[in-house]
């Protein structure tokens, strides 16, 4: 028996299960132990150990019967924003702290139908609004790369999922990315984070933040894992009207090198806030691609700064409407007391149930949609969004991929946000938001550690529905980047295969 099965990637671990090197239960227990050991990181809001153990037993018999499915016995962590049938789903909000959905989201259903086992529901910024996982009614998650005396944020909003994969408290995890909520925490935690083309993964059963931007995403420590989960969960869903109709193409085939491939490096991403170390990681990444045979050239995405402004109009606008259903009538929290009127009950319940950041975004969203401001804000933002999408479309006439940093800085200390104005945190999304507005697929890869020993990530961005090509190029790039570092306290076994 292996001493630490938690270091196996999904692909490698599934291979061992098929070989019979260890059992699904043994693999599961290694994660249960890790979750326990990482208790102070506050990775999970709810664990589902009991049902997971039953599922692991059944998985073993499927292996014995030779009826094992592709993901049979693979433990997965799920951001607590995917509705899971009969498992409490909170969206990180006090409002939903007792909400038990009577149905299963499409993405989690597809993974479980393929044999995956749910380890638990991970922590997040309330309703996915935030970049630090501090805005959770269930407490902040800590980055596994933190120094013991100086806790860092894991990024957000899918911080629990990113940190769980980094800390080996799950081999793979689901997140959602609205403006960078998968790619940014992946970068902060030194794991891979993938956001597919908008419409590739169903939003059915995903608690909405901003409908036209929300897209489920995947965290993993190996590119093969990303592709495995993506291919299992992707595809048209008749329950989501925005689900893409085009079929998911065959798995990517390995490329010998990147000759003939053109990579664009956007001039406008050299922002004043860009950390010097990230700037150099970015340059080295470009150099690595060149060595692989790619041509790297500067491109222009002129509406990059405006994109952030457009995002912070569109996302709150949609959120203000999406979150109107939380009124304390049909589910969720209702403030105690003898309410004088229906409106008094609404106000009391919503003010009690929603945290500060959520309330702030609802207020902004309500404001930008209200009479007199609609054209200056919401309509203008939608036009800028079209320009952002056009920027990328023009760029992709010249290049095959865009290489960009995932974040302007490495993971920042817990509580940093409280000392600054709210827009400081919003600025963190500058490199991820344009991609979300345009609905493009992007992969955040861990590239290097900075001097402080924290991981830094790079994003590879592809044209819409270019996942297959993105994975093919990313495989070579990732191999060349050769990021092997693990958070302090973990042993870098060769198992990140």
């Amino acid at each position, binding site marked *: 028996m292996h001493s630490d099965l938690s270091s196996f990637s999904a692909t490698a671990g599934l291979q061992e299960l098929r070989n019979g090197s260890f059992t699904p239960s043994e693999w599961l227990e290694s994660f249960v132990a890790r979750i326990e050991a990482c208790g102070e990181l506050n990775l999970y809001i709810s664990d589902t150990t009991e049902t997971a153990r039953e599922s692991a037993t059944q998985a073993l018999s499927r292996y014995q019967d030779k009826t094992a499915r592709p993901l049979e016995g693979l433990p997965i962590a799920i951001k607590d924003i995917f509705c899971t049938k009969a498992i409490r789903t909170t969206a990180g909000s006090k409002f939903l702290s007792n*909400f038990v959905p009577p149905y299963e989201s499409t993405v989690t259903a597809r993974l479980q139908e393929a044999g995956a086992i749910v380890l638990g529901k991970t922590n997040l910024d309330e309703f996915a609004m935030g970049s630090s996982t501090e805005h959770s009614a269930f407490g902040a998650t800590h980055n596994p790369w933190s120094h013991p005396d100086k806790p860092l944020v894991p990024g957000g909003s899918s911080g629990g999922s990113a940190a769980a994969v980094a800390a080996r408290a799950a081999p793979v995890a689901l997140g959602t990315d609205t403006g960078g909520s998968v790619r940014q925490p992946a970068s902060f935690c030194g794991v891979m984070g993938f956001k597919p083309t908008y419409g590739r993964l169903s939003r059915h059963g995903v608690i909405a933040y901003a409908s*036209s931007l929300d897209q489920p995403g995947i965290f993993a420590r190996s590119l093969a894992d990303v592709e495995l989960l993506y291919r299992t969960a992707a595809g048209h869903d008749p329950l989501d009207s925005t689900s893409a109709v085009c079929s998911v193409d065959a798995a990517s085939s390995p490329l010998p090198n990147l000759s003939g491939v053109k990579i664009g490096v956007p001039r406008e991403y050299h922002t004043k806030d860009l950390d010097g170390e990230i700037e150099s990681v970015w340059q080295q990444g470009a150099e690595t691609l060149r060595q692989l045979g790619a041509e790297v050239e500067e491109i222009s995405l002129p509406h990059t*700064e405006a994109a952030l*402004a457009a995002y912070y109009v569109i996302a709150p606008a949609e959120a203000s409407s999406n979150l109107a259903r939380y009124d304390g009538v049909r589910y*969720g929290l209702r403030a105690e007391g003898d309410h004088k009127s229906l409106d008094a009950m609404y106000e009391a319940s*919503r003010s009690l149930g929603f945290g500060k950041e959520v309330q702030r975004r609802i207020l902004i969203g309500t404001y930008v949609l209200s009479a007199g401001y609609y054209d200056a804000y919401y309509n203008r933002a939608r036009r800028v969004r079209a320009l952002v*999408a056009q920027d990328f479309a023009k760029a992709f006439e010249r290049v095959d991929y865009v290489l960009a940093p995932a974040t302007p800085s490495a993971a920042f200390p817990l509580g940093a946000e409280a000392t600054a104005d709210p*827009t400081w945190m*919003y600025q963190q999304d500058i490199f991820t938001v344009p991609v979300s507005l345009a609905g493009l697929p992007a992969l955040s890869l861990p590239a290097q550690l900075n001097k402080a020993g924290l991981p830094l990530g790079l994003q590879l961005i592809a044209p819409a529905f270019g996942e297959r090509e993105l994975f093919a190029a990313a495989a070579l790039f990732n191999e060349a980047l050769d990021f092997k570092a693990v958070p302090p306290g973990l042993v870098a076994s060769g198992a990140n295969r």
Partner: protein
Amino acid sequence: MDTSTVKKVASLARLRVKEEEITTIAQELQAILGLVDQLAKVKIDNTAPMTTPSAGKTPLRPDAIEANASRVQILENAPQSEEGFFVVPKVVE
């Protein structure tokens, strides 16, 4: 963003803002609007607005009853229900 606007917006959004917090909230919202005001500088010409990255048209489903959720399912998460109804404070029309 003045405090009366904050109150008006909060009331539209059914959020209760504490009197002592209104000034802070107004400042925070003003800071966000400061970021967002970059929109005004963009030359948008005749660009058509973009609502969603999805191309195409809304799919249509056949007119069929799949299954009504059971009343139990519909009401099980309700903070207050009686005789199969959701119960709310009295609404005066």
